[in-house]
């Protein structure tokens, strides 16, 4: 029996050692080839071909491609990438394999259309994706919403946005706000409130973490834009009355009868520069804000609480 | 030296799908086989013969106990060079020829390269398979496969041979040949340990036998001793259908069968019986001592075991 013990011991040690070595090597190989799962994306020119090749297991394959899409975007976004060339093909393949994977369309609406670094900067392709989704899921009101969303947010085509919301509102069991949004487009397209409605809707109607986080950031930015606009108007009024710029925020608050020291969504008070500009204390915390930023500032988008 | 010493080898299996129950395939076995003898390991099917052989070959691991072969621990790989094994109903690689197969086995047994083809040829001759060059094993009949099996066991000239049912699948001529072979092996000083359920073979060949039943050893001893006549009777057979009065007077128990008569008389009266036949001018055909057959011993041992088992159950 001694033989057996000796052999078993050697075999056992060898197995453990080899396991460790192979795991280590795998780690190194991963580093050599980042995003290697996506190589085939580059080389499959026809999603339809992929569907046929998947031999009926397209559902599973769609799930795999969806996961890859989410990871691709999250990984690159976390590393401050400025292009997302593979996002559109990945989403197209996912939806080709499973046209009923609604979350893929939502993802496209949120991240295909906006310009880099927050998105792939391909609004036209996003529109095509939404229309494809609508063709395959004509009774899903969310897709009409997403379509209108893209037209509104990224193309500023308020008429087409209104169209989309209108079409969506006719779908049975459609959310009532679609009708409301269609109406809003007509007169109040550029209003903060409209934008706020849309981002709130996106937030509430999605389960995807990245989409929701994105919506939250936009809502925060909207708040800042709104606050800064009002505060800047107050500065102008002050200037017209007194003929000079206010020396401090507290003076402005007192003079214009503002309700307390104005604070941003993070509870930091807004700054008033000597040149009379209203600015946020920490611009990096509001990646989508368009107002209240110091001159020459370029935003570095990063999500709060996002898991990469 | 003892060729084989079995020291309490025991095997218990766990059977059943969910709740495993223990099943004893072999109770602790103690057995010795001397070098140069032919030892028969007898028992009905399922008695534990094959289990014992597999334990000795290291194919199955014992629950307890050990064994020694030629003085060494039975798990010692060097021991394997000295033994040969023929499993029950052997089966070989379909697509090799007998020559290739035996050559392969010779390689594994460490037969030197120069020797190999000579040994293979001579072994094939010995098992009466001289003309099978180039024929793949899948084309062999059962009897031929059995011979190949024996060939691979004796190929490397081992000192101890283990055969599991060596006669199975053979016609009467084949069986005779195997019996002759085993006698030869004994003459060469080799030890043969074989299992069988055919008692006549064991009776004819073995020096000693052991009987195993339901995993337990029931009896062991030299064949001569087990089948010796205890009654001192002789059987006398003569031509014809007449039974002389003098024969009846001796208290003989006579039976007429066809055109011969058989009578069983006391050993001490055999001279008187022969005289009686001569007087009546009856032709004596045979005069043989009555022996208990191995079969009777066998059956008795099994029955006794069953009744004891029955009484304790």
């Amino acid at each position, binding site marked *: 029996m001694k033989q057996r013990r000796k052999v078993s011991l050697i075999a056992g040690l*060898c*197995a453990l050692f*080899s396991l460790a070595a192979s795991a280590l090597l795998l780690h190194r190989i991963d580093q050599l080839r980042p995003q290697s799962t996506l190589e085939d994306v580059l080389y499959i020119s026809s999603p339809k071909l992929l569907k046929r090749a998947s031999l009926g297991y397209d559902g599973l394959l769609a799930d795999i491609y969806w996961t890859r899409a989410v990871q691709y975007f999250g990984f690159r976004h976390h590393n401050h990438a400025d292009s997302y060339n593979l996002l559109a093909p990945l989403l197209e393949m996912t939806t080709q394999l499973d046209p009923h994977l609604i979350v893929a369309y939502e993802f496209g609406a949120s991240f295909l259309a906006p310009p880099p670094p927050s998105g792939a900067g391909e609004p036209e392709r996003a529109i095509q994706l939404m229309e494809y989704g609508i063709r395959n899921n004509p009774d899903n009101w969310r897709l009409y919403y997403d379509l209108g969303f893209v037209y509104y947010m990224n193309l500023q085509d308020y008429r087409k946005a209104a169209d989309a919301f209108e079409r969506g509102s006719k779908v049975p069991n459609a959310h009532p706000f679609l009708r409301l949004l269609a109406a809003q487009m007509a007169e109040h397209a550029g209003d903060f409130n409209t934008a706020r409605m849309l981002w709130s809707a996106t937030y509430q109607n999605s389960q995807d973490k990245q989409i929701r986080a994105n919506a939250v950031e936009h809502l925060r930015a909207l708040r800042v834009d709104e606050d800064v606009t009002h505060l800047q108007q107050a500065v102008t009024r002050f200037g017209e009355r007194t003929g000079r710029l206010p020396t401090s925020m507290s003076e402005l608050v007192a003079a214009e009868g503002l309700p307390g020291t104005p604070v941003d969504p993070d509870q930091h008070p807004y700054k008033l520069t000597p040149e009379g500009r209203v600015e946020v204390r920490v611009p990096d915390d509001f990646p989508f804000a368009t107002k209240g930023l110091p001159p020459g500032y370029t935003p570095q988008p990063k999500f709060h609480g996002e898991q990469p | 030296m003892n060729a084989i010493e079995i020291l309490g080898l025991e095997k218990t299996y766990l059977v059943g799908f969910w709740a495993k129950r223990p099943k004893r395939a072999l109770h602790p076995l103690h057995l010795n086989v001397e070098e140069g003898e032919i030892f028969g390991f007898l028992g009905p099917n399922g008695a534990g013969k094959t289990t014992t052989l597999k334990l000795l070959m290291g*194919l199955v691991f014992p629950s307890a106990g050990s064994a020694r072969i030629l003085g060494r621990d039975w798990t010692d790989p060097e021991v394997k060079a000295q033994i040969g*094994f023929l499993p029950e109903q052997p089966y070989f690689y379909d697509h090799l020829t007998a020559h290739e197969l035996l050559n392969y086995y010779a390689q594994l047994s460490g037969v030197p390269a120069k020797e190999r083809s000579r040994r293979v040829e001579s072994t094939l001759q010995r098992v009466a398979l001289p003309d099978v060059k180039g024929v793949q094993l899948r084309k062999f009949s059962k009897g031929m496969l059995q011979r190949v099996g024996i060939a691979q066991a004796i190929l490397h000239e081992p000192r101890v041979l283990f055969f599991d049912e060596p006669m199975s699948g053979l016609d009467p001529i084949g069986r005779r040949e195997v019996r002759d072979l085993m006698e030869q092996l004994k003459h060469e000083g080799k030890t043969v340990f074989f299992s069988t359920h055919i008692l006549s073979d064991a009776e004819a060949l073995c020096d000693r036998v052991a009987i195993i039943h339901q995993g337990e050893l029931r009896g062991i001893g030299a064949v001569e001793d087990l089948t010796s006549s205890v009654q001192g009777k002789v059987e006398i057979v003569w031509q014809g259908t007449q039974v002389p009065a003098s024969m009846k007077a001796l208290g003989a128990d006579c039976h007429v069968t066809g055109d011969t008569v058989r009578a069983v008389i006391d050993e001490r009266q055999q001279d008187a019986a022969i005289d009686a036949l001569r007087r009546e001018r009856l032709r004596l055909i045979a005069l043989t001592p009555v022996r208990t057959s191995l079969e009777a011993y066998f059956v008795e041992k099994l029955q006794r075991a069953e009744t004891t088992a029955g009484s304790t159950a």
Partner: protein
Amino acid sequence: MNARILHIASNTFREAVRDRLLYNLIAFAVLLSGAAILVGQISIDIEKLVVINLGLTAVSLFGIVIAIFIGIGLVSKEIEKRTLYTVLSRPVRRWEFIVGKYFGLAGTLVVNTFFMAIGVFAALFYVSHKFVRADALVLVALYFIVLEFLIICSLALLFSSFSSPLLSAVFAFSLFVIGSFAEDLRGFAAMTHGFTRWLVTGAAYLVPNFSAFNIVSSIAHEQPVAMQLVWHNTLYALFYAAMALSGAVLIFEYRNLK
């Protein structure tokens, strides 16, 4: 000791060959030549692509099937058919048997792949009428495919050492499929938390990772392969196979051959 392993390996090879295994090469040759001729009639530019993609995919798939079906027979069948008894009653250690079987099977596949490679290059020459430097990449792809085989063979042997032929085939094939998506598995793992993360990550490293070996698409587009990757893949395959083989040896050491 080494001699015995060699003998077992060569016997395994011989059994495989005699089992009309090499007929698969005929099927392969027919498939490939048919495809090459067909593609030669269609528009230019993608013939080479098709031949490379189809040829290498076929080499890979045929080989995997052979590796699994012969591999699982290696031990299971020998036990079932009791050919193993007469081998183990000789001075052959159990581990020598396993190792010998492995080399025999691996050797069979290498030889098989060699002949298939000739076929692929022949088809390539037929459609392109010449060889270019980039065609050497096909050799690299073939080498990686052989590395895949080394892994699959070791797994087939591992399962064969304790499980029936049918189950072994199922397990080996499942691991092949999972292994092809192992990178995605690691991606999934990164998205989970706590205990699940540990479990899935562990599984993702335990499973053979074939993605790094699958460079068929990229070399079809003449993308170069880093030398480092070749080294790393080679070592990975060797270590992984060693792990599976050690497992097989360990299991077989304790197996009762009923």
